[in-house]
């Protein structure tokens, strides 16, 4: 079963990371899910694939009443991101799923109804959870053609989807990046291959470097904290992407 770890807490405002499942079958990629809570309201970022739903739901239940999750945020359309949608709708038929306008019709193949989807325009939008204002940040072509990240200005945390991903070996599965130079070798191949547009990458780095970020939380791998956030953005800005290299 996965574990739920609170990575930020300020009164009723919380970020809970649902991470690492030792029982996960080896052929399924590991994913991180993030629950953003404001008092009685919550949004779950990239809820994950159908196969890992039991692990996510049960870990999350230990920390928060799942019936109070009002919305899902889907950074893009991939199965490891949102194929569990039908399960979440099963538990709450009124649940909303925020995602790029580009993917609503496609993700509907995973589940949901006409009223499930709240489409986000290319420029992003504000999403309110309880009284908390979150900002959907455009990250198109990183890697998906309709891709969004979610920024919490109050907690100063950016949920960065696949950006920042590191494919960690089993003995290096810490929740936070502890040694950037060592860690980044596990991120390099992924970013080179999966991030297809150098122009989109530079634009994202330029915009995100202007945000006040204490934690950058990717959907796979470890969380970047403090100075490692800027370090990562600089590293990414200078990385050659969209190339077939081993």
């Amino acid at each position, binding site marked *: 079963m996965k574990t739920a770890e609170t990575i930020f807490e300020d009164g009723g405002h919380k970020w809970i990371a649902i991470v690492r499942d030792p029982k996960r079958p080896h052929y399924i990629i590991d994913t991180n899910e993030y629950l953003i809570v404001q008092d009685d309201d919550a949004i779950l970022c990239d809820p994950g694939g159908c196969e890992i*739903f039991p692990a996510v*739901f*049960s870990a*999350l*239940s*230990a920390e928060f009443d799942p019936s109070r999750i009002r919305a899902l945020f889907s950074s893009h359309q991939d199965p490891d991101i949102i194929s569990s949608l039908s399960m979440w709708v*099963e538990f709450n038929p009124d649940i909303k799923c925020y995602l790029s306008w580009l993917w609503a019709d496609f993700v509907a193949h995973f589940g949901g109804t006409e009223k499930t989807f709240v489409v986000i325009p290319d420029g992003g939008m504000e999403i309110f959870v309880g009284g908390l204002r979150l900002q959907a940040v455009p990250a198109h072509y990183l890697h998906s053609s309709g891709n969004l990240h979610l920024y919490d200005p109050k907690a100063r945390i950016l949920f960065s989807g696949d950006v920042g991903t590191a494919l960690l070996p089993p003995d290096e599965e810490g929740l936070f990046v502890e040694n950037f130079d060592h860690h980044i070798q596990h991120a390099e191949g992924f970013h080179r291959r999966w991030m297809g547009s150098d122009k989109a990458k530079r634009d994202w780095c330029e915009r995100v470097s202007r945000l006040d970020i204490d934690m950058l939380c990717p959907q796979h791998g470890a969380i970047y904290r403090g100075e490692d956030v800027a370090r990562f953005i600089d590293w990414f800005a200078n990385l050659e992407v969209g190339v077939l290299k081993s």
Partner: protein
Amino acid sequence: MTTTIQRGQQLRHIVRINEEIKKVIATAFTINLMAMNAIFLAKRAGTAALGFGVLSGELRRFAIDLQKQMANLGEMTYDSVSTVTAMLKQARLNQMVERTLEICSGRGKDLVEDALDSRLNGILADRQEQSDAANHRLSQMIADTVQLVELGSVLVRSAKIEAACGGKLSAPLTQVSSDFEQSIGEIQGSLEKLTKHHFEESAA
């Protein structure tokens, strides 16, 4: 898990049923053409083959009716595919809910138990009812088809007798009636297989 395997088996049986339906339609089309030729042949044989000509006309009508009947059966199996696919999806969701229940605790467990209860008594029960009704309709239609083919078989037997009285064209008429008989035999074989697959599909 058992339920998803059963649904998978059902889908495979439906595929086999559809294959048999296609075979019967193709054979019925052949009977139609053969019957048309037989009508011309009977006309050439004159009054001696009058009865054979009438029976060939009946066989044409039979072939057309059979094609229609099989097309309807095809549509019904399409409906069955939709129902079984929906049940397969529900069974898979059910598996996930059951797996969640095994490892969940606290408030989450209560939610999962409620969801499972409502699934078993609601969606799954409704789907099962739909599936049973569709199976019943399919059984009825297969039984009607078997009766129709029995009529075809009677017509062919009569055609064989009439061919023997076909005067100088008796030999070719007998050959045609044997061809009819062989085609009806193929249709009966397909219907037997189709019935078997339907029986196994219903039992799965």
